[in-house]
């Protein structure tokens, strides 16, 4: 069963545990799609001044009840998170309120705090706040993990406010109201997602990948993670979403492509022309394999040399079971985890029929034979006949599995070769082109090097290298 690991977007309003390690362990190195880093910086100031002043005229008398109030805030939040390392950040929240009555008496208050944030590599950590009065507070923002702070977003917004007013309320009072508001607000944020393709760093090995993603534009400039209640607009045209340098998603929201093993790529979604959006991205690696099957006439050879006692081994041992007329057989299967409709995009229907199908090569029924007596004793006495590609066989005694590329001397080249062989099977020949030879040839086509030191199934099965990844 395959799993697609998705970073569930915060547009769902769900606090997602992004610390989940997304790995698959069937290769030398596991592959994973993961949050590499997250950087945020928000700076905001507000300055609000409002003055109630006497403006007695008409039916009203001045009552000297005016006054002036000023409110100011200074806010900064920043953090930097890096996968495997952890994160640091800081918060700064200060405020000041002043009020002067009509006699010039001043009343005021001020406060604030600064906080230092640290998170370990698991995302857990703490915030130590220092109040302006010298007291400390821990976790004053009620969030001790980084995950509640990360929005999977790109943000580059500025939202200044500059306004003044002068309202004449003298129609029913003697007090007028005038003032101004001057705010600054800038916020930048970037979450960066990467894929580590895993596997071995074998030149030319390319595995098939499926990526998917989504994005929603955030319409409220001052929204911050977790973006609860923020107005959003989904990017419904998926082709507008690019995943790093890999390219843009297709209309169905997927991007299929091959990537080399053991590399790292940026897959952060971007949307051209959008300054503030949240996103999700996921990926799935599809492994391909070259499987080799062998039926050996005597699978326990040579460990069975002492098991025949004074009677000696059976005639034909170890390469041929005379009574069962079994010289053994070698056959193959080129398999991939990729869906067949995707495989078909890389090759023809005829060729793709060989995917996930056991097949082998041999002489056409009744049209070739081998004098094993001579072959056994003389070594090299060959028989020939028209060849044919058959299905798999029964009685496997050796089964090896090798990870291969999808493209580039991999599964696709392999099935193309089998289709060609099926159409033009050539001459089957015990010495130069038998079932073992074809298993080796197709192995080479898929970059799997198999030994051809012995062309009997018995010896071939004995010499096969172990499974590889």
């Amino acid at each position: 069963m395959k799993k697609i690991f998705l970073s569930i977007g915060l547009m769902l309003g769900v606090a997602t545990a992004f610390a989940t390690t997304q790995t698959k362990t069937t290769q030398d190195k596991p592959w994973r799609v993961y949050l590499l880093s997250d950087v945020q910086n928000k700076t905001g100031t507000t300055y609000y001044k409002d003055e109630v002043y006497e403006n007695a005229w008409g039916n009203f008398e001045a009552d000297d009840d005016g006054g002036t109030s000023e409110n100011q805030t200074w806010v900064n939040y920043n953090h930097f998170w890096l996968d495997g390392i952890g994160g640091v950040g800081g918060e700064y929240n200060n405020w000041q309120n002043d009020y002067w009555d009509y006699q010039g008496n001043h009343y005021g208050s001020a406060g604030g705090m600064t906080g230092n944030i640290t998170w370990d590599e698991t995302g857990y950590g703490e915030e130590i706040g220092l109040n302006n009065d010298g007291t400390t507070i821990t976790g004053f923002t009620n969030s001790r993990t980084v995950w509640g702070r990360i929005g999977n977003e790109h943000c580059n917004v500025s939202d200044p406010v500059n306004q003044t007013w002068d309202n004449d309320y003298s129609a029913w009072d003697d007090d007028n109201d005038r003032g101004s508001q001057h705010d600054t607000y800038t916020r930048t944020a970037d979450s960066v997602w990467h894929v580590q393709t895993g596997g071995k760093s074998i030149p030319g090995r390319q595995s098939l990948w499926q990526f998917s993603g989504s994005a929603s534009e955030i319409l409220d400039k001052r929204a911050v993670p977790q973006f609860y209640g923020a107005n959003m607009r989904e990017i419904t045209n998926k082709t507008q979403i690019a995943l790093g340098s890999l390219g843009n998603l297709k209309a169905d929201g997927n991007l299929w492509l091959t990537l080399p093993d053991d590399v790292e790529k940026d897959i952060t979604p971007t949307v051209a022309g959008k300054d503030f959006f949240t996103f999700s991205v996921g990926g799935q690696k599809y492994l391909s394999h070259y499987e080799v099957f062998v039926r050996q006439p005597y699978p326990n050879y040579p460990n069975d040399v002492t098991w025949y006692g004074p009677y000696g081994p059976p005639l034909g041992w170890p390469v041929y079971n005379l009574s069962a007329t079994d010289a053994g057989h070698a056959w193959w299967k080129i398999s991939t985890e990729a869906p067949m409709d995707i495989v078909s995009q890389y090759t023809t229907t005829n060729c793709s029929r060989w995917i996930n199908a056991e097949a082998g090569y041999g002489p056409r029924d009744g049209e070739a034979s081998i004098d094993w007596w001579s072959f056994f004793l003389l070594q090299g006495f060959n028989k020939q006949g028209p060849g044919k590609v058959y299905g798999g066989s029964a009685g496997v005694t050796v089964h090896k599995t090798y990870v291969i590329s999808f493209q580039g001397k991999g599964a696709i080249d392999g099935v193309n070769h089998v289709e060609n062989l099926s159409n033009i099977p050539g001459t089957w020949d015990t010495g130069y082109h038998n079932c073992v030879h074809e298993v080796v040839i197709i192995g080479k086509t898929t970059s799997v090097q198999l030994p051809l030191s012995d062309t009997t199934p018995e010896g071939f099965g004995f010499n096969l290298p172990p499974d590889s990844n």
Partner: protein
Amino acid sequence: MSCVTPLFSQPAHAERLFVPFMNKESQSNVIVSVSDFGSGQTCPDQFTNSLSNTNLFSLETQEEVRSAFSKYKLVTPTRGPSGTILVDSFKTNYQLKIYNKVVNSEEIISIFQYTNRDGRELIKYGSGLWAEYRNASNDGYNFSFNRTGVGTQLGFGEVKNNKPSGVFVRFEDMHPQGISWSPKDADFIDSRLSEYRQYTNGFVLGKFLMWNVNNGNLLIKAEYTAPYDWKKNLLQPK
């Protein structure tokens, strides 16, 4: 399918037939009447490859073979046949160089003593199973399970004075077990007799028969008219 269609028939003009894979020069006292290693030749009823064929097996031998099938299926290095106790057990390790590779092989040899009679079992356990049953006179039988591509091959040979004497037979169970193999999963209910030899005092003397277990045809039928050292004259692959 097999990757080859074997053909072992010897030239029609040959004046006499030989047992293949055996030294030709050693076969002056061997009369080979059938030697057809293709699909074989139709087998006369008297040589039907069946354990119940009384032309080949006495009733006593039949019973002995049948009981051996079940007797050795469940033995382990520490658990012998029913009615025995373990008296000794040891491991042997040796190296084989085959196909330019060195293979390490390990066997466990256990000796079991019957508690109700003077008999013992020597059982080797490793890639296959080899068993020797002997009574106080060193009479008894040898027995083996060996893995093949088509399943399990059972060997049974009567012994007198610690030498092969009587019949030696092989059966194929035609029951492939896949990647892993175990004697306890051998299935001899429908097993087919594949080889039959008659021994006297350690030498082949008398009949030698082989059958194609797929169709029951005779592959070889030979009569050894003088004691014949089988192992000495068996040709091994180069």
